[in-house]
């Protein structure tokens, strides 16, 4: 019988924090500026410049640490991680090795076997590096330091995961916690959340861990799942052939579905960490910690529980709506404006999800305001517009966040409640469709549907189908 193998996975997750400024200087963290327009002597590593810690970075790190059940290191400090690379202008990255701000936490994930705890070894604060662009024409590299010094937290898990599904459940859990805290938008594709996968295999039942490799360049859940599968198979093949797994960093190529060793022996990984003398230690008093704790917002698990108690909407809707902070915010704000929860949920679950899928957008990209959604719901409830018109208006709202009341007014989309005008149209439709009229009178109930359709068409959609139906029955 073939040997059974167990995959052992630990993750290093980098999250870009949502601060306005960099971790050690007053440069903007805004995305997409022209090259080097968000730089200063500190974040370009000029001699003599001095870093000063952004307090908000500590607050976000504390918030994430508390939400992931960590012990907070109340006396923590920064260390220098030394390496030479042009995206790192100081020749060291300011990070935390000896006293990381958070330790020994966990998050709970759902697995087919039930709830499982994934341990968090530590969370530390550090700075991001610049961006390198390789210039083919001049055979040189170009550096943009706009991202240099952008604050990151690195969340290091214990090797507690056993499959790609567990890894994705863990990442999703982290993403939701951090988004709810407002500490980051956590977009994998845009790099505000990045995961490095440490993976080893061992024979089932074996206590000892196998030799692990680290995989980088994973920027989607799909790539992560494929990389885990690919690397697991590669390591098993090596072991089956009696060859050793080499501890190394590998780069996943999602197109080729294979990972490649990244560093040669010439690049020994020895970071010679030492405390950064330019930065004063950080002391987190009990009072400070309590004040962060008291400001923690409602997280997803609590929110789901509350929705179940407060709103009469299905569990599946709760699952989807609380699946992103942005959608939950829109839902709650619209309900707060007096709209019925079930109606709000319907607009989010049906039309919003449809348009997001059609336009290949994420729920975070929703732009319409709760105020406008509440107005649209009001218009349909008061039967000012019918449901077909409402969907059209919603599409406009989805694209451009238009004011539905003004839009309906300007475009003349109101349902015609003028009995006389409606009656006249219905009579005309009856007059020009004698065949359907006869079918209906001969007991073919379905024929009335066609006549309703013809009337709606003649009214350019601005009639209430129920009233048309009623009127037709009266006149026939």
């Amino acid at each position, binding site marked *: 019988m073939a040997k059974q193998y167990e995959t052992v996975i630990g993750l290093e997750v980098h999250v870009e924090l949502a601060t306005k400024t960099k971790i050690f200087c007053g440069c903007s963290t805004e995305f997409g500026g*022209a090259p080097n327009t*968000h730089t200063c002597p500190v974040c370009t590593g000029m001699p003599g410049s001095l870093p000063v810690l952004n307090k908000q970075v500590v607050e976000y790190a504390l918030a994430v640490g508390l939400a992931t059940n960590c012990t907070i290191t109340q006396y923590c400090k920064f260390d220098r991680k030394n390496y030479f690379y042009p995206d790192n202008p100081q020749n060291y990255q300011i990070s935390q090795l000896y006293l990381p701000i958070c330790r020994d936490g966990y998050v709970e994930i759902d697995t087919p076997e039930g709830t499982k705890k994934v341990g968090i070894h530590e969370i530390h604060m550090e700075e991001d590096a610049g961006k390198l662009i390789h210039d083919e024409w001049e055979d040189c*590299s*170009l*550096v943009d330091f706009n991202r240099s010094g952008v604050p990151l937290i690195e969340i290091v898990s214990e090797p507690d995961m056993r499959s790609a599904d567990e890894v994705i459940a863990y990442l999703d859990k982290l993403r939701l916690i951090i988004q709810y805290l407002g500490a980051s938008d956590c977009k994998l594709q845009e790099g505000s959340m990045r995961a490095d996968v440490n993976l080893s295999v061992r024979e089932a039942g074996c206590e000892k861990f196998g030799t692990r490799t680290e995989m980088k360049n994973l920027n989607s859940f799909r790539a992560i799942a494929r990389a885990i599968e690919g690397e697991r198979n590669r390591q098993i093949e090596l072991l089956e052939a009696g060859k050793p797994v080499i501890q190394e960093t590998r780069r996943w190529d999602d197109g080729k579905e294979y990972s490649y060793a990244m560093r040669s022996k010439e690049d*020994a990984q020895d970071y010679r960490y030492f405390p950064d003398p330019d930065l004063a230690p950080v002391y987190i008093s009990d009072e400070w910690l309590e004040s962060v704790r008291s400001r923690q917002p409602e997280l997803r698990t609590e929110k789901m529980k509350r929705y179940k108690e407060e709103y009469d909407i299905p569990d599946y809707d709760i699952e989807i709506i609380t699946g992103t902070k942005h959608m939950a915010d829109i839902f709650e704000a619209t309900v707060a404006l007096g709209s019925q929860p079930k109606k709000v949920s319907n607009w989010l679950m049906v039309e919003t999800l449809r348009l997001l899928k059609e336009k290949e957008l994420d729920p975070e990209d929703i732009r319409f305001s709760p105020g406008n959604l509440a107005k649209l719901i009001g218009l349909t409830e008061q039967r000012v517009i019918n449901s077909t018109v409402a969907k059209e208006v919603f599409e406009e709202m989805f694209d451009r966040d238009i004011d539905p009341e003004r839009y309906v007014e300007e475009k003349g989309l109101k349902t015609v409640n003028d009995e006389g005008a409606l009656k006249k149209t219905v009579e005309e439709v009856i007059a020009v469709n004698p065949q359907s009229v006869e079918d209906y009178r001969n007991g073919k109930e379905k024929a009335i549907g066609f006549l309703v359709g013809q009337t709606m068409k003649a009214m350019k959609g601005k009639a209430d189908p129920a009233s048309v139906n009623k009127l037709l029955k009266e006149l026939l």
Partner: protein
Amino acid sequence: MANMIDDATIEYVGILAKLALSDEEKEQAKKDMGSMLDYIDKLGELDTSGVEPMSHVFPVQNVFREDVVTNKDDSENILANAPGSKDSMFKVPRTVE
């Protein structure tokens, strides 16, 4: 000299520092590093049993900035420090093969 830096250490430190050292430079570095370590060894002569380990030379903590943008676009001055520049970026030798 109690601390002997051997050839393998010099070779290794040279790789880490991305330095291509000549044989003479290696010999000199070996001597220099050895005497630096000897100097540090003086600390071992002191009785530090009652001294708290320290992580910073000054008795200060919690030096913070508020999260407010204070820097404007100064790319022209910043790039004036670059060894070379192109398209408002620092120009460096090619980093990948």
